[in-house]
């Protein structure tokens, strides 16, 4: 979309601002529920071209600016939900209940605490996460290295030591579970 004139922007705000809560994310971005991720992105980028606050920076009407920004913020929300697979699934459920927004109360129940929560030292935590990433890639040596780094920052964290033992065991058994 090309840059909009102030009149076009005002008309746009009049049309959408009042009924923002009645529009689904699909309506807002002008896509359908089957639209692929890449096409959702393309639609959002088109909208952004015309409606990102930077494109009406010089607009004098503050109230109009505020309204446009609220509309655009909702489009950002739509984009984020529709391009995150888990959120998109959750949103499909919400829509069947007649709601138009995925709000926090509709969110999946609180995530369980992550294992690294018990690690105090920031560096240890960082290397622990890297170790877990390595494990995910089945890179046992990399995992060993990162867990060892983690332990060097925090020697007494049970969770690190446990992972070290597990990884060591997997490394010792080539062809065993988890090995390359």
């Amino acid at each position, binding site marked *: 979309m090309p*840059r909009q004139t102030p009149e076009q922007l005002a008309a746009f705000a009049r049309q959408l601002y009042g009924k923002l809560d009645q529009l689904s994310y699909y309506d807002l971005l002008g896509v359908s529920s089957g639209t692929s991720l890449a096409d959702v992105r*393309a639609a959002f980028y088109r909208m952004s071209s015309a409606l990102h606050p930077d*494109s009406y920076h010089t607009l004098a009407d503050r109230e109009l600016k505020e309204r446009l920004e609220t509309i655009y*913020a909702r489009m950002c929300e739509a984009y*984020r939900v529709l391009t995150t697979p888990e959120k998109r699934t959750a949103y499909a459920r919400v829509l069947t209940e007649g709601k138009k927004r995925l709000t926090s109360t509709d969110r999946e129940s609180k995530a369980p605490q992550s294992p690294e929560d018990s690690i105090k030292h920031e560096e240890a935590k960082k290397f622990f996460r890297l170790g877990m990433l390595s494990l995910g890639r089945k890179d046992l040596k990399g995992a060993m290295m990162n867990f060892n780094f983690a332990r060097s920052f925090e020697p007494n964290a049970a969770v690190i030591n446990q992972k070290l033992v597990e990884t060591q065991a997997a490394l010792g058994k080539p062809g065993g579970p988890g090995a390359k």
Partner: protein
Amino acid sequence: MSVVGIDLGTTNSVIATVRDGQVVVVPAAHGGYLHPSVVSFSADGLKYFSREGVARRIVDPKYTVYSGKRLIGLSFRSKEVQRAVARLPYELREGNNEQAVFVGPDRTYTIPEVSGLLLGYLRQCCELFLGDTVTGAVITVPANFNDAQRRATIDAGRIAGLDVLRVLNEPTAAALAYGLGQHMSQRIAVYDFGGGTFDITILQVEGDVFEVLATGGDTFLGGDDLDTALLNILAELFRAEHGIDPRDDQAAHARLLIAAEQVKCHLSEFPEARGELKNIAVSDQGEQLALRFHIARNVFETAIRGLVARTIQTTQEVLASAGLGASQIDEVIMVGGTTRVPLVRAEVERYFARPPRTDLNPDEVVSWGAAIQAENLAHAGENLANHAVLLDVTPRALGIAVAGGFAERILDRNVPVPVEQTRIFTTSADNQSTVRIQVCQGESRRFDENVPLGELELSGIPPARRGEIAIEVTFRVDTNGILRVRARDAATGAAREAAVNVRGGMTDVEVAEAVERQKSQESPMDDSMLPELGEVEELKD
């Protein structure tokens, strides 16, 4: 009236503008285009900037402020500031509202004031060069700067008499300067290794839209650390020759550090550096001692290999958080002077398995993007050829304190801005009349492991049993990355909206006073204010 783009760096700053559709970088007083981010205060009230300030790091370290960007917008009690205090030769103290303030020869200065003085100097350089007044500016900040740091940067701009059109993320500015994505969709990694910090950002660029997919970095890793590694090599050589450790003497240390930086630049172009540094320290007999040295590039590279590896480690982590691998990146852009170091380029090339882009000057590329965006904003509404839409994300998760010492997240990190999110909370005691909303930034589930940003109070809640009152808390982050928090009693509709009273920040009243003070003290600048630097011998190959 002109608008400009300013890359306000930890070590150097660059200011640029667009003239007749071309980016023009404003030259620095002593040649080149980098203005060292240094302000030196003298007892007679004069202030020295840029390279003149750098010279005074040796003669007047106590009143010469550098690396102000490491302190801006942070609480004095934060570990970053405490760490800086331990390293810096000038005195910092805790001021109002947990701010770090610099103890100058005449009075104390808040950090936004010091940065404001520097920005004012840059503005004057630009006005002198253009022969035109400068009114508005886009100022760049690291992508991982938090709300408070962005706010303090805007305050600094205001103190310098600038209308801050936007604070822009540095990597986005760099991508904009390269003008990528015009005709296709590309994924770009911006590897920014500057004087004081390292940042890595992944962008998706398509047509005129630039979207930040993920960003991360290390605020305590930069070219300065490479300088320190070289300084240690030089100091050991000096000690071997004279039996004195020059690091024990502040002035000798400062001289050696300046030399180390020059040796580093030399080693970036040549396989070895040799030379003589005169007057490094004074012996017990009162005689001036010189250092003769000969350092091969590979000695330097051995010393910095671990530092460079850390940047690759962080890069890998940020890519993983975007669900990407190195092979899915179409283009790598190099930003920051430290990317001139051959080992840095080699390691980046090895990791991404492609040569990085270095065709634009890595020191200037961010200011280019800022200047382009300043021009875009000043002419918003017109259909410019190179208008761009920059989609930024929240650098960190944002949440509030809840019972049990936990933090309840309201906004995730890496969420496109602007964004507005509301969550509903209840009161935790019977007949609670006031709720205090403590805002924090960070990913930890424990409140005290995150960075506290500030707080907001909603009072006048009617008596009710605990849990019966619903308080809606709305977080709104604008395109500058600035957070506003609204708390609303759902039953009565009573609401309180505020920019969070940021700890470590200046109050609006303080900023207004500083703006006035700066206005009344400003004097036009002329070339006579720019004496020569002749402290350090040039290196000879």
